[in-house]
């Protein structure tokens, strides 16, 4: 499969500005990509994998400089190339696909225009020829109805279609090398599966070399010919996909692969059959725009949902973005008022309580949020953040702060860290603070909205372990919202699959994931990247 290398990095070092948390973004990295192969660069956030892509394109932020080594592209050293030469290389010979297609596309121009721009800049084709090429490209990336899509603005397309348009743009000039920087991370799992297949197909047809950057070993298993593992800017291991995935040598690679949760559920836990939370026939419709009710857009977000959470159990709600799972979670904690239905918590109906009552009762049900950066007030110290809840409910300040320090210990943080501000903690630590804050009120039910989605896989594993430990110790009942089926399989006892605001299937996790009944559930499970790998990996673990 591999031929002459198109791109080879030769002992490449890139230095970071003074005051960064390490001196080098990349240190002595050597790697090659041949035509017609896909090389995956895997690593956690901050491992320097995106910096590698930017170095090849010479798109480095200020203060970051190439310190040594060579980037050989078709025998030419790009480190020494002039800026004018680089402009020719970019787009024409090396193209790039970014993570977030919404921000990578210009919102004020149509998709067709933006693809056409590639031809206008790099070729002398006439307008009609360009138009024909654009349509052909959109056809290639299998966008439904290319003529319409070419005239559409980015916001009028779905996330998957935008990413297809980005790929069309990248492949417009038949580049020798395609760099894809986490191209499917922002997409839903079913869309991700389609895009991965598309990249695979196009790559094989056009014999393009692909440098694919990802943090997800499932994606690696799905698409890679060869794999390179990065840690702290150093390439710790590389080899063929099969050898890395099945016989990892370096301890870091082993740790990363072990942190990928398997898709099958562990042995079922015992929990009581008495329900603590009963959601019945809850509906919520979003209304936006419109003057005096005219021309308003009505989107039903949650449609007639009924669920029960037994005491001590963990109920997973899984679904893709826009399925209404977050809206449902926010209805349960009354951040959003449901339109209809009842939510019984310990016999009291939450859905019909007044705002004041909710404020008083809120200590029975608490929420953990997704974004470890956005969910903590940046201007409050960690201990204060955790103590806030008890203070609001009348605990004297000094007692609450002392209690907060104890909670720090409970969630595995240094109690003396309470005097620091949120930005001084890492993502995983911040999520622990968020957890401590929710636990400070000693809730019966915890609603966790994608609590580990923003975390690296090894940190994710730690936080999940902490969560299940606390669940045992404190007898918590948890509603766990996630889009990641693997995570759901690991922590949940019961699982409900949501699609377009409705629950299409629910039951014990082993049953739903093991023998899915609904076609949508089956599609979801089939789309989980690296399914085969996971199955093997699981067999190896157990």
């Amino acid at each position: 499969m591999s031929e002459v290398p198109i791109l080879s990095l030769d002992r490449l070092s890139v230095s970071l500005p003074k005051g960064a948390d390490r001196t080098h973004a990349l240190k002595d990295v050597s790697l090659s990509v041949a035509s017609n192969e896909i090389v995956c660069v895997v690593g956690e956030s901050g491992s320097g994998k995106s910096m590698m892509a930017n170095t090849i394109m010479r798109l480095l932020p200020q203060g970051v400089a190439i310190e040594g080594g060579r980037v050989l592209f078709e025998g030419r050293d790009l480190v020494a190339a002039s800026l004018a030469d680089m402009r020719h290389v970019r787009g024409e010979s090396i193209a790039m696909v970014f993570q977030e297609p919404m921000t990578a596309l210009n919102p004020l121009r149509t998709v067709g225009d933006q693809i056409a721009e590639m031809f206008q800049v790099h070729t002398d084709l006439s307008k009609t020829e360009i138009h024909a090429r654009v349509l052909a490209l959109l056809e290639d990336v299998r966008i439904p109805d290319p003529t319409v899509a070419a005239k559409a603005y980015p916001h009028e397309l779905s996330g998957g279609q935008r990413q297809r348009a980005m790929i069309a743009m990248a492949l417009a000039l038949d580049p020798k090398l395609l760099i894809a920087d986490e191209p499917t991370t922002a997409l839903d799992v079913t869309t991700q599966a389609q895009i991965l297949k598309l990249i695979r197909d196009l790559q094989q047809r056009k014999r393009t070399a692909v440098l694919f950057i990802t943090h997800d070993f499932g994606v690696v298993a799905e698409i890679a010919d060869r794999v390179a593992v990065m840690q702290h800017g150093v390439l710790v291991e590389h080899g063929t996909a099969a050898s890395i995935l099945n016989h990892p040598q370096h301890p870091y690679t082993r740790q990363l692969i072990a942190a990928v949760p398997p898709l099958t559920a562990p042995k079922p836990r015992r929990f009581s059959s008495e329900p603590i939370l009963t959601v019945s026939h809850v509906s919520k419709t979003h209304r936006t725009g419109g003057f005096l009710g005219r021309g308003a857009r009505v989107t039903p977000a949650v449609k007639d949902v009924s669920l029960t959470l037994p005491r001590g159990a963990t109920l997973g709600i899984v679904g893709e973005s826009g399925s209404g799972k977050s809206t449902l979670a926010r209805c349960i904690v009354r951040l959003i008022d449901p339109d209809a239905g009842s939510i019984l918590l310990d016999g009291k109906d939450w859905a019909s309580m007044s705002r004041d009552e909710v404020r008083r009762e809120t200590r029975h049900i608490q929420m953990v949020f997704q974004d470890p950066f956005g969910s903590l007030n940046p201007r409050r110290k960690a201990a204060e953040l955790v103590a806030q809840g008890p203070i609001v409910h009348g605990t004297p300040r000094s007692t609450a702060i002392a209690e907060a320090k104890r909670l720090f210990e409970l969630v595995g943080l240094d109690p003396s860290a309470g005097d620091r501000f949120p930005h001084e903690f890492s993502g995983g630590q911040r999520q622990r603070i968020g957890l401590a804050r929710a636990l400070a009120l000693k809730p019966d039910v915890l609603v966790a909205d994608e609590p580990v989605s923003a975390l690296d896989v090894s940190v994710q594993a730690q936080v999940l372990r902490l969560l299940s430990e606390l669940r045992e110790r404190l007898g918590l009942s948890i509603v766990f919202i996630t889009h990641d089926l693997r995570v759901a399989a690991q922590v949940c006892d019961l699982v409900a699959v949501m699609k377009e605001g409705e629950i299409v299937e629910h039951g014990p996790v082993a049953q739903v994931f093991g023998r899915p009944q609904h076609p949508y559930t089956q599609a979801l499970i089939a789309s989980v990247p690296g399914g085969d790998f996971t199955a093997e990996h699981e067999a190896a673990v157990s």
Partner: protein
Amino acid sequence: MGALKRYFRSPAAVIGLVLLLIVVGMAIAASWLFPNNPLSLAGRPLVWPFANPRFPLGTDNSGRDIAAQIFYGARISLLIGGVATVIAIAIGTLIGAFAGYYGGWVDNILMRITEAFQTLPNFVLLLVLVAVFGSTLTTVTIAIGVVSWPAPARLTRAEFLSLRNREFIQAGRTLGMKDLQLILGEILPNALPPVIVYASVVMAVAILLESALAFLRLSDPNVASWGNLIGLGRDVLRVQWYVSAIPGIAILTTVLAVSLVGQGLNDALNPRLKQR
């Protein structure tokens, strides 16, 4: 702290701060350097600067010491600038906070009121207020504050709109905080930096508004203000131009100082903007 260090790294910001401190120093030293009433007659009228060592900056048309008026005028300008800014920012943040936090009809009503104020040129509105309520120092200061709040209100509202949906505010709500606790304790501290920076613009404009009023002889004639001095100099502008020019330079310096400090604060409080 980091912000302080970043502030002192910018030469323009340091120059602004030094100029501002000089003006503050003048205000403090006024009664000590010039123990007599600055509005009392001191010598022959219209003495040129440097002509008489007793009057280093000369005298105005009625023989009052210009240097004394400049020093006392610094007090008035800073007082009007400071108090009017506090009034404008207080009204502005309050209205902006409520409009941004509650949204919906509260936002609609408050923003229509704000727009009503904004559609009128604020100097015209100021003239009306002074014409109705008289032109003592107090009314002039309050009137300037009252015409300057719409812009800070819009700024605060915009900050609140983006902050109120952040997860830490939702977290506060799930902890059972009351709206007022969320607005004052959680959102406001995060919304303030740009408002503080904007306060410097409000202060500079407030000083200019007072001078403009004084130039039209609509400000309080019983205090020694720079604007009053310019207004007086108007009568002798073609020959004894220094009567207007000297206070003009004082106003220019003060407004420049305040703006530079504001710019410096902006760069110091938004370090990411600075790097670009």
